[in-house]
């Protein structure tokens, strides 16, 4: 029973960590792309 609980916790935790790493990587790439955009200035 305990082993079954640990297995579920491991699967859930590993999935959670993996998907968090993917989301973080996507967000970092988006931020890097945004930072590489050219600077545009307008007189107001």
């Amino acid at each position, binding site marked *: 029973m305990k082993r079954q609980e*640990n297995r*579920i*916790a*491991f*699967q*859930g*935790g*590993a999935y*959670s*960590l993996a*998907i*968090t790493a993917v*989301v*973080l990587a996507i*967000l970092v790439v*988006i*931020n890097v792309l*945004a*930072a590489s*955009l050219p600077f545009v*200035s307008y007189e*107001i």
Partner: protein
Amino acid sequence: MLYNIQAAVSNFEFVLNFCSLVFVVIVPILTMRVIAEERKQRTDQLLYSLPVTTTQVIIGKYLALLVIYAIPLAIISIYPMIFAQFGDVYLLTSYGSILAFFVMGAALIAVGVFISSLTDNQGLAAGIGIAAILLNYYSVSLSEYVSATALGSAIALVVLALILGYTVNHLTKNDALGSGVSIVLILAVVITYVLHSSSFEGLLPKIMKQLSLFSRFNVFVNGVFDLTAMVYYGSVIVFFLFLSVQSLEKRRYN
């Protein structure tokens, strides 16, 4: 407004810059019980049994908080128009700053929601929230005082690796995996430090400056609509709401 009267300037964006410190108090107060109280009163079990996903629950709670936050900002949005009656106001800068102020607050609220999802004690959630936002507010100033040497940055990364290992251990209930992640990351830091220690020079202060939400707001106050800052705020919102969803999901499998 008192600042504008005292300094005899009609630039509304200065007011926003001046009062951004209020986030340290209002965001934790606004967010401290949003999930913590549900956990304490066991009403989160009701949320799990509803025919909605955890993501929808978090987004619903977050949007409700945003509406509460947007009401005073909507009232504040009239002020530049009032100022314009008595002096020259750069309305584009003012409204750009108000928009940035809103998005920055939205990012801080997302952080607050995540902190609230970690505990069932709303006082503790508020305390951690105040500490986290205060640390972020002064992170640029504090970066002047932390070690900029390669060794200092390497030690900070080692501590970060240990925290990450503990988090992995906590999530997976697997000691070997948690320790393994810590050891691999620490080895990576040590090897990089030995081979290329110059890459660690000034890394810690740089990270602290880059992660600051408040310093990016100053750019808007100076009349620049910084798209990278908006993207950063959006990323913070998405990341912390995602972590909040994962935090709720964790209770399902643990």
